[in-house]
């Protein structure tokens, strides 16, 4: 029997094993009907990578291979589910580090082959967005979602949970990348987001008027010009023999980033008739960003959601939720699917 003949519909119970290894977490989960998370096992390598100030790809891949079976075993055990009970298997297939992605993607393919169940390839960023729906299942739709991290800056529109439309994305540097680079340049520390935010708290955000990228009617973002403006400012001040106030500089830089992000959200809110705004990704932890967006959407009477955990770590439960909606859409992957390190939403 082909697996196509045993696909279930929304009214039946659907169990999905989801795997994730795109960055430095090896994770497995079992979800029932999407939002019901039966188990969520995350084995983190953060300590391993701390000394490098970022993830070292080969070290991460080796660790993923080592942790693969233990996390799968634990996820099944905690959920009280056997391999034979699964209706589908899912894995992240991008974006991320290829070496890591291939570990769980290959595992998921082999599970799909061995058990004759469908394979679902999930975009890691989509997973992060769906994570919000686990915490807040009642978010009103349609909604606008801004996902911002070291690697991404994407603005999305969700009519319902079954799919989304991309409104805009960064053309060069991601918002989180800009924070990291400015932080390293000003020697404020790693990770850059919290370091710049901290310095900004004691600075004057109106001290320096950094330019905002003008991208016309589009919902796109660009931060490389801002990054270069900060460099130029510092170089020029130093040449003039002036002292640099890192706090003022951080505050002004942060304000420029936040303003670009918030402006596009407002633009989208005006064009689309939405009920909520959702922030996701590491940069969503930025307090100033939350504050500015709250203020600016207030008059539109919308709910604003952002992840509760300051550190919205990678996990497989969120991949499982995204996978469930893909299952309902019969959005299955062929066994020839490969990892895509720069996969876009």
């Amino acid at each position, binding site marked *: 029997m082909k697996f196509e003949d045993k696909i279930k519909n929304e009214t039946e119970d659907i169990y999905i094993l989801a795997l994730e290894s795109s960055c430095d977490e090896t994770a497995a989960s079992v979800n029932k009907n999407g939002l019901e998370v039966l188990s969520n096992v995350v084995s983190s390598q953060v300590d391993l990578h701390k000394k490098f100030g970022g993830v070292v790809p080969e070290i991460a891949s080796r660790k993923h291979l080592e942790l693969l*079976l233990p996390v799968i075993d634990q996820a099944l055990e905690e959920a009280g589910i056997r391999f034979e009970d699964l209706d589908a298997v899912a894995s992240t297939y991008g974006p991320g580090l290829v070496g890591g992605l291939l570990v769980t993607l290959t595992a998921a393919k082999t599970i799909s082959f061995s058990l004759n169940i469908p394979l679902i390839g999930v975009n890691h960023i989509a997973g992060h967005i769906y994570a919000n729906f686990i915490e807040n299942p009642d978010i009103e739709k349609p909604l606008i979602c801004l996902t911002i991290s070291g690697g991404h800056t994407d603005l999305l529109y969700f009519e319902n949970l079954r799919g989304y439309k991309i409104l805009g994305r960064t053309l060069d540097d991601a918002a989180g990348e800009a924070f990291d680079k400015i932080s390293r340049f000003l020697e404020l520390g790693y990770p850059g987001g919290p370091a710049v935010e901290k310095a900004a708290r004691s600075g004057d955000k109106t001290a320096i008027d950094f330019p905002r990228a003008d991208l016309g009617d589009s919902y796109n973002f660009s931060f490389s010009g801002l990054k270069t403006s900060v460099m130029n400012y510092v170089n020029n001040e130093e040449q003039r023999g002036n002292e640099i106030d890192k706090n003022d500089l951080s505050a002004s830089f942060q304000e420029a980033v936040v303003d670009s992000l918030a402006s596009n959200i407002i633009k989208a809110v005006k064009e689309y008739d939405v009920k909520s705004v959702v922030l996701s990704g590491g940069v969503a932890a930025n307090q100033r960003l939350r504050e500015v967006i709250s203020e600016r959407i207030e008059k539109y009477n919308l709910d604003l959601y952002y992840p509760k955990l300051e550190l919205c770590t990678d996990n497989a439960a969120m991949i499982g939720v995204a996978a469930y909606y893909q299952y309902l859409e019969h959005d299955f992957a062929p066994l020839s699917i490969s990892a895509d390190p720069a996969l876009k939403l």
Partner: protein
Amino acid sequence: MLTLGIDTSTDNLGLALIENDIIKAEYNLSLKRKHSEKLLPLMVDIFANIGIRPQAIDAAVVAIGPGSFTGLRIGITTAKILARIFDIPVKGISTLEIMAAGVESEYILPLLDARRERVYYSFYKLNYKENDYLPKTLLTAAGARISELSNILRNYKDKEITVIGEKRHEVIDHLKTNKFLVNQSAAEKNIPRAAVLARLGRDYIDQGQKDDIYELKPTYLKQPQAEIDWQKKYGDN
């Protein structure tokens, strides 16, 4: 015993099914970095062609390198999952040993290209005259510059050595210049063949030598140092 052999360690994607002494199917595909896309579809294909179901396999054997780290992890992950789901034994075999086990000579030097005039090598003795087809390791796998090999093999100058694999012509030239006795083998003996892998794995498992599925991992060999370092010229102005 139905044994599945999987090799994604080099450009050769190898997949074989052997049952006792019969090769039921063997694929050796010369592909460049398409292993992730091809492996599972090929598995579907091989099982469909033979008309058996995956749960029928009794053992999974996999090449553990040296080779591309990413490629190696594809095959090893597949073997681990199969072993876990079907509760069967798994065995990892050195890619160089697979090559050595495919020729009939006494002293064998299998090679894999490590680029920039470097190779991965291992050195084996095969007592095939006594019908023993499991190679004995004389020198464990390592990386070296081709120019270093005569020194590495200095204790075997009086033996007839069969040199196989990638870069063999360069290595043979080098060893001949240094007065070694060297042989070659037929063209098809120069790749790690999937059926040889499956056979080796089956023999080891028969002897009770299986691997722990949780511990199985690639041979992570370091690339030997290259001769030219551009650091001085382009590093700082």
